[in-house]
């Protein structure tokens, strides 16, 4: 029998990777269906539009529920499959802070996501502006983690890894795909090392696997 959860996924898509990481860390049973995003743009074809009219990846189906948008899927998975309630904190301030970084991931980090797609697949966009926007976003993250380290904290929010860390990790870890090195972001270098050591962590193409 098929598991209740199905992820429509493209391996080189960083938003799909966000959801794959969450599934690997929370370990609910699930199936993955490969969608040919490049060059096929299969997510915009009628069969996939019938499932997700937005024509985007990833898409998660869990029983009667169909969700698009990496941030929404992450929030749902945390609510549904993280009984310890650490990935999406229950307290109002922690919840708000994590939502803030999820919003940041969907807005400020869009530059990094588009810059990477352009570098890998020649998608349209202003290369200089996208890279500048990505660097600006990484600076905001590095400034934040610099201040967090002064408080002895290792994570973006609270004292445990949360969806904030999970959603921010891929764009920074993949930044060399579009020519932004990690040289200028010392606090983020320390943070991604911590994140890589989490149980269930695995890499995707573009993120070194130190075996």
């Amino acid at each position, binding site marked *: 029998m098929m598991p209740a959860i199905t992820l429509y996924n493209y391996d080189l898509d960083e938003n799909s990777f966000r959801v794959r990481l969450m599934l690997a860390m929370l370990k609910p049973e699930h199936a993955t269906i490969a969608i040919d995003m490049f060059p096929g743009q299969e997510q915009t074809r009628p069969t996939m539009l019938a499932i997700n009219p937005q024509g985007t990846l990833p898409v998660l189906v869990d029983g009667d529920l169909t969700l698009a948008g990496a941030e929404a899927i992450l929030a749902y998975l945390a609510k549904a499959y993280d009984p310890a309630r650490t990935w999406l904190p229950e307290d109002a301030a922690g919840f708000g802070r994590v939502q803030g970084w999820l919003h940041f991931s969907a807005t400020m980090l869009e530059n990094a996501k588009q810059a990477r797609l352009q570098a890998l697949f020649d998608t349209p966009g202003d290369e200089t502006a996208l890279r500048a926007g990505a660097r600006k976003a990484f600076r905001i993250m590095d400034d934040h983690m610099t*201040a967090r380290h002064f408080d002895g904290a290792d994570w973006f929010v609270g004292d445990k890894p949360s969806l904030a860390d999970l959603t921010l990790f891929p764009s920074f870890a993949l930044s060399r795909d579009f020519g932004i090195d990690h040289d200028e972001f010392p606090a983020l270098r320390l943070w991604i090392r911590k994140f890589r050591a989490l149980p269930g962590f695995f890499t995707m193409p573009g993120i070194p696997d*130190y075996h």
Partner: protein
Amino acid sequence: MIEHKGWIPVTLSTALEPGTSAGTLVGGTELVVWRDTKGAAHVWEDRCPHRGMRMSFGFVRGDHIACLYHGWQYDTAGQCQYIPAHPTLDVPKTIKVPTYTAAEKGGIIWAALSAEAAEAAIPVEDGEVVPVRSIYIDRPFEAVLAALRNANIPAFTGDAAPRFETIADGIGIASTGDDRLLIACQPFNPTRTALHLVIQGSAETYGGAGQKHFARWAETFRLMLETVSTPVAEMA
């Protein structure tokens, strides 16, 4: 090779954990800064002789650093010792990464990029330090130095007026109130400069709030420098 007379700061000591590496630039030349698992810091040219891959993308194993591409392993002298594709090969002595003299002092890792630089002492006092941060500013080295000499750094403790004393090219002590801040500048590339900030004082006084205070100043300083339309040197 790179022409530099003095010691160049390349990272805060605390930003480089044992068994890790980081890339950086001095005058546009790529360097890898890495720390072996025993804790010793090394600064090399950031280039694997095999295919030119940045060594800073690689990984540290004990006292070797390995290239991410094909796993070629180099010892702390830069000598290639092991090539995974040819495990029984006695690696030729000619396969070597150019190395520089590295030293750690005052909370900072420094590199001497010439023999002349390596002979001099690092012009920084020993004593208790509290790291603040490294900050990368999109302005040339000289413009940043000019702005630093006129910087009005708010004190964390005490109320003496701020002043900046240059102790070597690109290295200075900012005094403000009762606080002393070591500011070491790294000429990153022609348009970008890195500042490495360390408080000369005790963790008891500066840990947490004091660190945040000076980190926030550094971020404000970066914003000010990057948003001015006229060269800062002319504003002063």
